[in-house]
């Protein structure tokens, strides 16, 4: 094996083991930042030793044991200088006695340490950007250059973001625990928000040349799938996984060979990924079996599933989509959801009924700069054979969008109205 081969092997081991190693060490040291440093030191030791000794039989245990040894050394060293650390070292020794079996720590069969790590990396005290970077780093095992590439952000910015996030968690004494009771729902939704943010960053890339960055979608899906096993009784987790699986199933279909976005109803459904659709539908079933009320992610997943189940756009169950949007709007009222509902209404009750809804929405100031509102409105006006007004709204939509490809499309639709 060459040095590069060794390096790639160790990198792969790291990706598999790092979250658990960091989680175990965080429990031991009660300091996330320190735990990650220790884990990194263990990784460096592996890079030094494994090429000679070979990869140990249980590499995760090796990494944790190495990190733990360094923690004890560190605390003992500091204990000489600082009284406080002496206490910590004693605490650590006590902890060692209460958790003497290294393997039980490692196996972590319930996955509690890992779940604690999920909750602390996605703590709402951190900005969403920091949460996303920390989650990819600590849970996804991504390197800083990988995260920087994924978010098209300079490496030092990502590194700083992570350092700052860890400092905030330490300063605010955020406990390494799984929230219980009423706090759980809010904390879980913060976790789901981060995972979906990572997914969307990959799925509808806000910047850069590519409209889709599939690896980021895959990272988010992996985090979602991991979370679904850690919290199997939370329907919203399965809902989010289902939503991501079904959206990811359309990756190949939603961009043309020349890079233009293709709208859902115009996509070639043959390009949809059957395995992911199947997985998405199973995740929805799993959520239903829990028998708790539907939350916003599950509802969105079910809307996505209505499209996934339709072999052709004509087969789409629009009445069901309208009722799902109505339920969603009741649960989390938002003008954007209302706008989507209006589109579904137009498919069931015709363009006039939808236009009434859209015109009511147009008075909502929060949609002033939202290009899809005039775009949907123009579309409905066109269907009602009112091309002059349609053109005006297409032009307005074109002026509002940030995306050049989309602007070109809207302007060409505006121009087409003129010739009618």
């Amino acid at each position, binding site marked *: 094996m060459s040095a590069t081969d060794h390096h790639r092997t160790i990198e*792969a081991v790291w990706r598999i083991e790092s979250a658990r190693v960091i989680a175990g060490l965080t429990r031991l040291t009660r300091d996330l930042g320190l735990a990650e440093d220790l884990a990194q030191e263990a990784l460096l030791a592996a890079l030094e030793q494994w090429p000679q000794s070979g990869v140990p039989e249980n590499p995760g245990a090796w990494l944790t044991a190495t990190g733990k040894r360094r923690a004890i050394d560190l605390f003992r060293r500091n204990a000489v200088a600082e009284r406080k650390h002496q206490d910590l070292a004693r605490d650590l020794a006590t902890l060692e006695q209460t958790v003497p079996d290294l393997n039980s720590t490692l196996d972590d069969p319930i996955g509690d340490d890992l779940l604690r790590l999920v909750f602390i990396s996605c703590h709402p005290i951190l900005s969403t950007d920091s949460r996303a970077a920390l989650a990819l780093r600590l849970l996804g095992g991504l390197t800083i250059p990988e995260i920087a590439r994924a978010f098209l952000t300079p490496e030092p910015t990502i590194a700083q973001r992570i350092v700052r996030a860890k400092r905030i968690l330490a300063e605010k004494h955020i406990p390494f625990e799984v929230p219980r009771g009423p706090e759980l729902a809010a904390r879980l939704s913060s976790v789901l928000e981060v995972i979906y943010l990572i997914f969307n960053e990959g799925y509808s890339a806000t910047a850069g040349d590519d409209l889709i960055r599939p690896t980021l979608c*895959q990272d988010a899906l992996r985090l979602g*799938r*991991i979370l679904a096993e*850690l919290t199997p009784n939370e329907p919203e987790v399965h809902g989010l996984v289902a939503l991501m699986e079904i959206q990811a199933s359309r990756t190949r279909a939603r961009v043309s060979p020349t890079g233009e976005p293709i709208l859902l109803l115009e996509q*070639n459904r*043959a390009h949809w990924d059957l395995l992911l659709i199947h997985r998405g539908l199973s995740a929805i079933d799993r959520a239903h079996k829990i028998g708790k009320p539907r939350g916003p992610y599950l509802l969105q997943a079910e809307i996505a599933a209505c499209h996934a189940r339709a*072999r052709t756009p004509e087969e789409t169950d629009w009445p069901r989509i309208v009722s799902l949007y109505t339920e969603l709007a009741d649960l989390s009222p938002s003008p954007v959801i209302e706008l989507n509902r209006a589109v579904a209404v137009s498919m069931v009750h015709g363009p006039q009924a939808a236009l009434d809804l859209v015109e009511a929405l147009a008075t909502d100031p929060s949609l002033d700069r939202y290009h899809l509102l005039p775009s949907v409105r123009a579309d409905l006006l066109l269907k009602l054979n009112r091309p002059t007004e349609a053109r005006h709204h297409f032009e307005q939509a074109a002026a509002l969008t940030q995306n050049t490809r989309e602007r070109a499309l809207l302007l060409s639709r505006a121009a087409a109205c003129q010739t009618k």
Partner: protein
Amino acid sequence: MRFMVIVKATPESEKEGALPDPQLLLDMGKYNEELIKAGVLLAADGLHPSSKGARVKFSGKSRTVTDGPFSETKELVAGFWLWQVKSLEEAIEWVKRCPNPHAGDSEIEIRQVFEMEDFAPVLSQEQIQHKERGRAQLVGQAKK
């Protein structure tokens, strides 16, 4: 990337009515659980012995059916997984953690799955679309 991870057959697994050892079944279940917990496993299945299968040989326009079992045991497939991982190395690391799938000697093969994009250099757009149309019919069957 996706990998198909293929468990090769052995004389034991090819035996009529062969069922795996209960302990192995237990270990394998635990291993599969690990794969699911890690968000790696997309699909998995085990196959009956080749005696329950058949082969269709092609020669020009002719088709000849041969019933199983087939003799070249080591080249037969006994089961497979479909994994989503970051690299071949990661797939290898996961395979190393797998319990020995048979009593005695066995072999697991790791193969990268083609993505549609990989075909771009050899297939025209039209050919890709033709290929995809076949899948479209399957989409219909997948819906419940």
